[in-house]
């Protein structure tokens, strides 16, 4: 039978069924299925598992309470960030110390080989591996929230807000994941059924400030906003969220007009998460970051080292620098680090470190004295780093998730345009007040 004949036969059967049951085939099938299920349940179930359900109900009375629901949600998010950033500090210190020790050993070799190993490979890989603790801890926290059943409640509490800005309750988890790394964030958009909701969520996900941007903020805020460093870093997260909301709204009014997907979703009973389940989740997402670290970032670091070693870095920077002049950071060193930051944002700090041949501890003052940056310039630079081009691995993920080159190219273009406009606005308008 040909395709046309099959479809014709299907239509005839549907009409036939509709004539008999006076209802759509879909409804008839659902009725029959649930009729059969409830009959079967009556036969086989003796004592329904009431206890756990009752406990779950009690928990829900508090967790999604009219007044407590939102403060509790904010509290959980705050708790997750505290957990991640406090617990990762000692691990990060160990990794830092281990790579420092290794670098010292290797630099004794001397020559270009020693330099490549010490400054390129060990320095570069170390600067990436240092993010493994916070990213993996964030994935653990998210896995716990998912497996215990809280994530469904979070979507329930937040759907109204997400719906208002044109997203979906389910967009919420990918956005939170984006704070760890945009790659799993973009991949998590697979759970969003409606294509318009999904594309919008993918396109605004890179504005969620990922772990790779944090060292840029920590470095610059630590030096230029010493007493208010925490506030300056926090403001980056807020700016990212606000830009994501505005862009989501714009996309849903222009590119992706039309109804958003439904929110018919089970709220499962609360369960105790298993160690195995949590670790599996963590690994499935975290290995994407490790793979990126092992391939792209490694290659980039070696290329930068090579360009630097042969003196080719400066001309590249000088070619790009004028573009950034209206934003306040039109120096070739800044341009170099931004251009390579496209490959991976953690490289921005690493590139500056290589250029000024400065350890992280004194890098801030090196930037201030050698580039003549003011706090205003530093802030504009931070905003640019926050908003411009998701890293190349995230762009590649957008390509594979949307199965087209259109969206990754669009993403690169529009985020860079927004970043440039925002940074230029901050520098130009801010200059009127700060002088």
């Amino acid at each position: 039978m040909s395709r046309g004949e099959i479809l014709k036969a299907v239509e005839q059967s549907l009409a036939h069924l509709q004539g008999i049951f006076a209802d759509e085939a879909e409804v008839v099938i659902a009725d029959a299925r649930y009729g059969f299920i409830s009959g079967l349940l009556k036969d086989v179930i003796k004592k329904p598992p009431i206890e756990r359900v009752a406990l779950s109900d009690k928990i829900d009375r508090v967790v999604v309470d009219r007044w407590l629901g939102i403060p509790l949600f904010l509290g959980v998010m705050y708790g997750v960030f505290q957990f991640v950033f406090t617990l990762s500090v000692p691990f990060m210190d160990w990794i830092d110390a281990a790579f420092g020790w290794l670098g010292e050993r290797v630099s004794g070799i001397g020559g270009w080989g020693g330099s490549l190993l010490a400054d390129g490979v060990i320095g570069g890989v170390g600067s990436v591996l240092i993010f493994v603790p916070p990213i993996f801890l964030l994935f653990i926290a998210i896995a716990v929230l998912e497996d215990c059943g809280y994530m469904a409640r979070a979507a329930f509490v937040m759907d109204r807000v997400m719906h208002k800005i044109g997203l979906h309750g389910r967009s919420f988890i990918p956005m939170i994941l984006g704070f760890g790394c945009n790659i799993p964030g973009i991949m998590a958009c697979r759970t969003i059924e409606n294509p318009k909701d999904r594309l919008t969520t993918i396109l605004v996900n890179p504005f969620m400030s990922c772990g790779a941007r944090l060292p840029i903020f920590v470095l610059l805020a630590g030096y230029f906003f010493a007493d208010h460093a925490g506030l300056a870093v926090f403001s980056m997260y807020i700016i990212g969220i606000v830009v994501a909301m505005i862009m989501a709204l714009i996309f849903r009014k222009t590119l992706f007009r039309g109804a958003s997907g439904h929110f018919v979703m089970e709220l499962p009973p609360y369960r105790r998460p298993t160690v195995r389940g949590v670790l599996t989740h963590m690994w499935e997402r975290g290995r994407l970051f490790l793979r990126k670290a092992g391939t792209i970032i490694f290659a980039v670091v070696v290329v930068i080292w090579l360009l630097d070693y042969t003196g080719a870095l400066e001309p590249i920077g000088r070619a790009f620098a004028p573009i950034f002049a209206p934003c306040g950071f039109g120096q070739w060193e800044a341009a170099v680090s931004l251009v390579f930051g496209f490959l991976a944002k953690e490289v921005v700090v690493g590139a500056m470190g290589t250029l000024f041949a400065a350890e992280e501890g004194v890098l801030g003052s090196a930037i201030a004295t050698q580039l003549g940056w003011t706090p205003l310039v530093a802030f504009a630079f931070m905003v640019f780093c926050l908003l411009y081009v998701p890293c190349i691995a995230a762009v590649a993920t957008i390509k594979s998730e949307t199965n087209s080159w259109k969206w990754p190219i669009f993403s690169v273009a529009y985020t860079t345009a927004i970043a440039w406009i925002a940074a230029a606005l901050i520098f130009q308008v801010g200059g009127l007040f700060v002088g």
Partner: protein
Amino acid sequence: MDRKGLHELRPGEKGTIVKIGGVGGVHRRLLDMGLVSGSEVEVERVAPLGDPIEVRIKGYHLSLRKEEASDIQVEMQ
């Protein structure tokens, strides 16, 4: 008997489903999740921001937006 859209029920109110409306994906999804005529449904609570709502059906908890609930006709008990 009093007929209403499911979205009009207040927390604690119960009804029996008499008709499932909606189009395409939503319609199918509602059926898949066990919202079929004859089933008893109870509104448990409304989300803190007023939407969506949580209902109990076939012994489990389901959340849906008021917009989707308005596609479901129930007979009040």
